């Protein structure tokens, strides 16, 4: 038998599941997330293998959704000092690199940058030939400063990456062997500053990812599954093998919510609908479109930096299982503070002094918690009206968030996942407005880890095609082929790869000789 392990590292819990080749759930566990993240993962691995009572050698692959990189950016810790090379002179000098970076993040990255001659036009012509001498000088300078990684970003590299590739070859000959180099055309799409920002963050994260991967490997060996292959899940819900993940670590920053949306789709067999993931602190609401999360259309900020990353479209509301409930005059307010994992010490039903959404669910009698330390008798004194109002508030908060994610007035199915789901009364399921049915699948609390375990492998292309040399149809065909090739390169079974997303945008204010085409392909992991 071949088995897979899916792991999800959340703010409160680290979950692990084992799935067999038919994607049946063999075992699932929840363990507390540890400050170093890795210890928690090792613990989860050991526990889930014990719970499944299986032979560790049957585990072929481990899929991991992790917050290592997200945390490193948010906390500005462990980031590498990088050298940033922009290719675009005489264009682009009006706005320097790091122009809109928060000061502390710029410092963490080292604020070392160069702009050299080169880059391309939208139709693939050169703005100027690449000035190789300038690249060499920049390389010598970077070596002297001692940068740990490099990002290269050339104008219109999504149309023509030649200058980025050539500059990389030159720098390889100068920098310490093994210095990681990020090329921007592999990171983001049109929009120089946003792509440059994302590439700089990516370069700064490579060491973080290396350390994390090393620790995962160790944890896997400890748990007796050192031979299994390791994959990381990325923002769009698909997998990267380790080699890929070490090149593109920035692609892991939003993988958590994505995994829960994908897991919800899998657990219910639903391809379209709304997913409500109720955690300890927040409820995340996302839209499921053809089995994948709908992506946000606006520029996304990561750690205060504008990037043009594709991220899932999400609404976060402060309504989790540990969210604090307050009575304000005649109203009830939820959060935004949450007790999080301290619920089992400070929650009213646990003998603490703080009223939470879980206490409300217990007091109203629709939730049960099998924990000897939890005693709903402690909630007897609560005002019945307050309980009723709080229940209404919880339901209406979720109802509103669901409605905001909907794309049409027609009722849609809502899938309820996450450990905090008990705060929504079952009796209210069919009363939630604009919803055809509320599905709370079995194993709902493990949706994220399951989402990681079932993830597919994808490839993506996003570039401007000039329609002067080729027809629209040919450009589209070319883009599709490139996306499929990327997916296979990333580890997909060639025969299972399908085009999952196509988008075409003509360029405004230019006669129609250029079009931006974006294609994504995905397929099953080749095991």
């Amino acid at each position: 038998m071949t088995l897979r392990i899916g792991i999800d590292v959340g703010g409160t819990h680290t979950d692990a599941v084992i799935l067999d080749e038919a994607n049946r759930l063999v075992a699932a566990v929840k363990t507390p997330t540890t400050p170093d993240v890795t210890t928690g993962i090792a613990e989860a691995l050991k526990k889930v293998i014990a719970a499944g009572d299986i032979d560790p050698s049957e585990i072929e692959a481990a899929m991991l959704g992790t917050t290592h990189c997200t945390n490193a950016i948010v906390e500005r810790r462990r980031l590498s000092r990088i050298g940033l090379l922009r290719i675009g002179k005489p264009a682009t000098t009006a706005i320097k690199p790091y122009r809109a970076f928060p000061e502390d993040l710029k410092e963490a990255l080292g604020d070392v940058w160069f702009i050299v001659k080169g880059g391309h036009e939208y139709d693939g012509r050169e703005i100027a030939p690449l000035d190789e001498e300038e690249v060499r000088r920049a390389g010598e300078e970077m070596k002297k400063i001692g940068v740990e990684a490099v990002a290269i970003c050339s104008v219109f590299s999504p149309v023509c990456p030649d200058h980025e590739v050539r500059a990389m070859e030159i720098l390889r000959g100068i920098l310490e062997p093994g210095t990681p180099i990020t090329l921007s055309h592999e990171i983001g799409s049109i929009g120089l500053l946003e792509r440059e920002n994302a590439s700089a963050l990516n370069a700064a994260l490579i060491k973080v990812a290396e350390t994390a991967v090393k620790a995962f490997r160790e944890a896997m060996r400890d748990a007796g599954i050192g031979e299994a292959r390791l994959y990381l899940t990325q923002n769009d819900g698909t997998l990267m093998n380790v080699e890929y993940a070490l090149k593109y670590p920035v692609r892991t920053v939003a993988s958590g919510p994505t995994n829960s949306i994908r897991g919800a789709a899998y657990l219910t067999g639903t391809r379209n609908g709304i997913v409500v993931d109720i955690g300890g602190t927040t409820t995340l609401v996302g839209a499921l479109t053809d089995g994948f999360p709908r992506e946000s259309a606006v520029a996304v900020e990561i750690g205060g930096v504008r990037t043009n990353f594709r991220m899932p479209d999400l609404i976060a509301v402060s309504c989790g299982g540990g969210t604090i409930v307050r009575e304000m005059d005649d109203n009830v307010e939820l959060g935004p503070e949450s007790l999080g994992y301290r619920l089992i010490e400070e929650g009213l039903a646990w003998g603490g002094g703080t009223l939470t959404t879980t206490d409300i669910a217990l007091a109203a009698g629709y939730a049960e918690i099998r924990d000897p330390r939890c005693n709903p008798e402690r909630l007897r004194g609560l005002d019945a009206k307050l309980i009723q109002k709080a229940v209404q508030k919880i339901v209406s908060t979720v109802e509103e968030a669901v409605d905001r994610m909907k794309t049409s007035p027609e009722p849609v199915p809502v899938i309820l996942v996450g450990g905090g789901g008990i705060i929504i009364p079952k009796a209210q399921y069919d009363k939630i407005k604009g919803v055809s049915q509320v599905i709370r699948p079995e194993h709902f609390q493990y949706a994220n880890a399951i989402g990681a375990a079932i993830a597919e492998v994808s490839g993506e292309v996003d570039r401007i095609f000039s329609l002067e040399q080729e027809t629209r149809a040919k450009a589209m065909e070319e883009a599709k082929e490139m996306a499929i090739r990327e997916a296979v390169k990333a580890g997909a079974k060639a025969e299972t790869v399908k085009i999952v997303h196509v988008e075409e945008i003509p360029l405004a204010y230019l006669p129609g000789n250029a079009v931006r085409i974006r294609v994504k392909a995905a397929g099953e992991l080749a095991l």
Partner: protein
Amino acid sequence: MRLLDESSVEDLAVGAAILGTGGGGDPYIGKLMAVDAIKECGPVELVDPHEVPDEALIIPTAMMGAPTVLVEKLPGGGEVFQTFKALERRLGRKAYATISAEAGGVNSTIPIAVAARLRIPLVDADGMGRAFPEIQMVTFHLHGISATPMAMADEKGNSVLLDTVDDFWTERISRAVTIVMGGSSLISLYPMYGRDVKEAAVHGTITLAERIGRAVRESLREKRSPVQEVLKLTRGYELFKGKIVDVERRTVAGFARGEAVFEGLEEYKGSILKIRFQNENLVAIRDGEIVASVPDLITVLEVETGLPVTTEGLRYGYRTVVIGMPCNEKWRTEEALKVVGPKYFGYDIDYIPIEERMKG
């Protein structure tokens, strides 16, 4: 006269995007350039058209081409000054001030960077009061001012000085030059005198854009509806509240055309609004009936933030408020409607001012 500082520019960029009626380009890049220029050279003197001497030379400055190119191939920084100087040389005199040709979108901010770095005033006016796609679509043209001599430059150092027989030829030739230059260029054009500005420009639009942006910022901070504030400042109307359920784009005669369909929310439940666009939003049709059309302004705002959604940014699932705002009176004459009316954009409908449509 008053001074425009960094924070004024931040507000102005938001207001300019709203006046951009879905087009005009994201002011982000222009805003960064303007803010940097002010940081280095100090605040910009904003003068009222009436403060400008009649005989003073005023040169509008702008970016031309695809906003998608501008966000990728950022300017070198010197291009616009090269064109400005070229026109001064050609005309044999120094300019007193610069002015925006188009207050909607990125072209609200480019002249601020010019004014700051050349330490000349910026006139509180523009040639549209909104955004339009072509060079002759400015009130300067309506008043018989010629777009040429016009100077164009790219970041490579190439520059072109145009003399043409009319503004339509200027549009055609300069568009072709822009494509050869790589899809975007910086331009100085419509050189004019102070008395022309008084007569031919749309007055007060820089201040209006700034006030719109400030109102959005302040109402968000105070958790009030930004949409109502925008409507008050622009004497506009709420046309619809709805979710985008379909966006269709196609390229017709070299322009990105399309249609977005909105399904009603709240009091508009059960209704459908369609917006036809070509770079900018041109016609809004609610349940089969036209509720607004070019040259009046149609802008799509995000419900929560009051921030505008460009035609390139229209996406399935957005929750929006669609607003209509009356255009400047200069656009409502028969002559003007030949240049920017619905028929020019290929819609066989008569223009009826939004105020009248809203009455009926």
